[in-house]
């Protein structure tokens, strides 16, 4: 330890010496040393006002000798003795310095935490049984670890507004609020919509929304995530399910090309909520509300659960083998140039690989995916609303996805294209095909999970799994390869799209021995040069950079600036 690098300083945390970069926050140094300092207001992605006082720790520096006195001698490791300061400091806003000492235990810090907890709990209602935060509530956790267990507060608690609708998606309970101001800072610093603030003083302080305004921006639900208590709750998730019942699955959002990292909370095959998962290369700690709430369709009544085969005007239930055989019969009778395959940029790389096999096997004359383009919001939402357009380019080999759709329409109109296989896409609503146009086809196969006009026009409907029901990999707008993980079981007889395509290939005389989606990834790694050397396990929860696209995410760029200017830790 005697050899000190210029940018590193020696810090003693709970009696052990570490080296950290100079200027690091004490709380981060403690975290990296494996010591958790309890905190409420501190959030690494937000500025630190230091108003909750929970992170008080004991701090010490080498004694400064009085003029004329002898300077203290370093020990054999070069560390000077530490003179502990009699008063605690907050770990979230102070930075470390050379030869600094931090104590996160001991009578002083423990007494401080006990006192802070007691004051925070003075006005906090005892409604944990009805509070949605119970189970993931910092106040509960730190109360158990550092609280007194008994209240000395005999006075009347301050009554504050409860059950206030501060926005279309958010409910506020002011009695539960501990005034950490995380939500205020988030709306100000990240969402650029500063509508929240404190009014009144002392124990009468309440969090309010600016008169006449509401917390309605598309990132408002992130305040619910960062609220350490149950003061802000999501209308969508309110009273739906206790958090301890739900199974968490780390996966990615498929609503746009950013591919926000998310955690899906589900119990007994029902998804209850989705929260963003920290990935500093993709979405930081946040995600847009519109994407977060777009999962209820997965369990809608319109879900197709069984294969259907058209009999005259009606569809009837069929077994998988019958439906696949029907499709294979029709396709085998046609020439490849008469077949068009319309895949989806919402499919995973593995699915696109096997679609590519199908295209080659059928010698299909036309292949494309449906493009979805919207306005970028300048935060996280990308202009490309397909999650895997880069995968389409790379794996399916399309130069400009979406450019062939009009040609296919014309081909159907002229009768050159007699059969269309549409995988996980709704041609009528999303690609501008009319039911009349589809009616001209000899054969239409669709695998969209929901019943819609395309399915109605299809000769064979094969239910494919929705994004939360399948596993695979996708490449986001910045060229990062990320894993999509299965969170819930698909309803009824629904199969994953790659299984459907595999069965189609087999039924039309092709052969392959693929039994798991990981087999497909191995083939992907073997066949596509960009993937070579990668394994399924290497991708991990945070993904790996795969290709250079030059696309950046505006929110991350601003975050980098704030880190560089020292406003936040990051």
């Amino acid at each position, binding site marked *: 330890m005697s050899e000190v690098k210029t940018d590193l300083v020696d810090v003693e945390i709970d009696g052990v010496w570490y080296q950290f970069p100079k200027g690091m926050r004490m709380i981060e140094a403690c975290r990296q040393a494996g010591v958790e300092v309890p905190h409420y207001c501190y959030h690494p992605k937000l500025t630190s006002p230091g108003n909750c006082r929970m992170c008080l720790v004991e701090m010490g520096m080498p004694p400064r000798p009085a003029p004329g006195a002898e300077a203290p001698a370093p020990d054999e490791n070069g560390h000077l003795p530490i003179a502990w300061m009699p008063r605690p400091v907050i770990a979230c806003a102070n930075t470390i310095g050379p030869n600094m000492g931090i104590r996160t235990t001991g009578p002083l810090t423990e007494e401080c935490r006990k006192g802070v907890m007691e004051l925070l709990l003075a006005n906090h*209602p*005892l*409604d*944990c*049984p*009805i509070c949605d935060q*119970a189970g993931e509530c910092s106040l509960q956790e730190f109360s158990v670890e550092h609280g007194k267990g008994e209240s000395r507060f005999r006075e*009347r*608690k301050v009554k504050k507004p*409860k*059950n206030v609708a501060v926005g279309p998606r958010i409910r506020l309970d002011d009695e539960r609020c501990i005034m950490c101001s995380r939500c205020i800072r988030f709306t100000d610093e990240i969402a650029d919509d500063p509508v929240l603030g404190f009014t009144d003083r002392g124990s009468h302080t309440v969090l309010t929304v600016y008169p006449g305004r509401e917390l309605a921006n598309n990132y408002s639900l992130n305040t619910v995530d960062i609220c350490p208590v149950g003061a802000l709750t999501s209308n969508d998730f*309110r*009273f*739906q399910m*206790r958090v*301890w*019942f739900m199974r968490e699955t780390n996966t990615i959002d498929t609503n746009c090309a950013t591919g926000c990292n998310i955690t899906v909370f589900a119990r007994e095959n029902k998804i209850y909520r989705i929260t963003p998962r920290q990935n500093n290369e993709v979405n930081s700690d946040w995600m847009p509300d519109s994407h977060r709430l777009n999962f209820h369709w997965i369990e809608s009544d319109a879900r197709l659960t069984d294969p259907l085969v058209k009999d005259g005007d009606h569809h009837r239930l069929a077994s998988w083998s019958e439906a696949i055989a029907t499709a294979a019969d029709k396709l085998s009778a046609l020439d490849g140039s008469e077949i068009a395959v319309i895949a989806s940029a919402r499919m995973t790389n593995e699915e696109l690989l096997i679609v590519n096999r199908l295209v080659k096997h059928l010698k299909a004359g036309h292949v494309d995916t449906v493009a979805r383009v919207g306005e970028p919001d300048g935060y996280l939402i990308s202009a490309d609303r397909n999650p895997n357009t880069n995968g389409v380019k790379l794996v399916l080999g399309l130069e400009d996805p979406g450019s062939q759709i009009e040609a296919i329409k014309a081909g159907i109109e002229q009768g050159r294209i007699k059969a269309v296989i549409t995988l996980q896409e709704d041609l009528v609503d999303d690609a501008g095909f009319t039911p009349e146009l589809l009616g001209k086809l000899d054969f239409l196969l669709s695998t969209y999970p929901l019943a819609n006009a395309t399915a109605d026009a299809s000769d064979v409907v094969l239910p494919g799994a929705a994004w939360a029901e399948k596993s695979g990999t996708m490449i986001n707008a910045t060229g990062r390869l990320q894993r999509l993980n299965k969170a819930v079981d698909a309803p009824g007889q629904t199969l994953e799209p790659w299984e459907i395509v595999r069965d189609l290939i087999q039924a039309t005389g092709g052969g392959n021995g693929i039994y798991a989606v990981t087999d497909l990834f191995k083939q992907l790694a073997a066949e596509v040069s960009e993937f070579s050397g990668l394994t399924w396990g290497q991708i991990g929860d945070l993904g790996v950079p795969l290709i250079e696209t030059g696309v950046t995410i505006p929110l991350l760029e601003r975050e980098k600036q704030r880190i560089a200017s020292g406003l936040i830790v990051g």
Partner: protein
Amino acid sequence: MAIIVQRPKLKWWEHLYLPGIITGMRVTLGHFFSILSGRTKVTMQYPEEKWDSHLPEHYRGAPALVTDEHGRERCVACQLCEFICPPRAITIKPEEIPSDDKWAKVEKRPRAFDIDMIRCIYCGLCEEVCPEQAIYLRKDYAITGLSRAEMVHDKTKLYEIGGVREGLVNKWNELK
């Protein structure tokens, strides 16, 4: 290590078994006649006689929901009993109390509260874990039904068994 058990050395008349048989029969016939004459009485004739009257206070019968003295259902659907229940007999579907309700400030209540009495093992953990003193094991022990569906106690049935419990900690008062 072998253990050698010393058998008792029997006298020659003991080898005959007959004295042993007679002694044994004296014991059995003693019981036989004492129960015939009504001197011993140990069995309760169940449906006619019941031990309802002398059930202990801590008897663990069917779990049931209780209301407080104002008629408010104590349960706030926190689902802790559902969580703690070892055989997973309890299923709760929570709902928000509408704002025009008298007890709107409680905010949450069970929309459905089912206890599958086929699964219930009468362990009493639900009663122990309940933060609202809303679920109690009552003294009902003869839970019968002709179908599985009948054996699932729904909210109505649970309140019917549970009734009112007064004088408990009342945390949803004005001062809360």
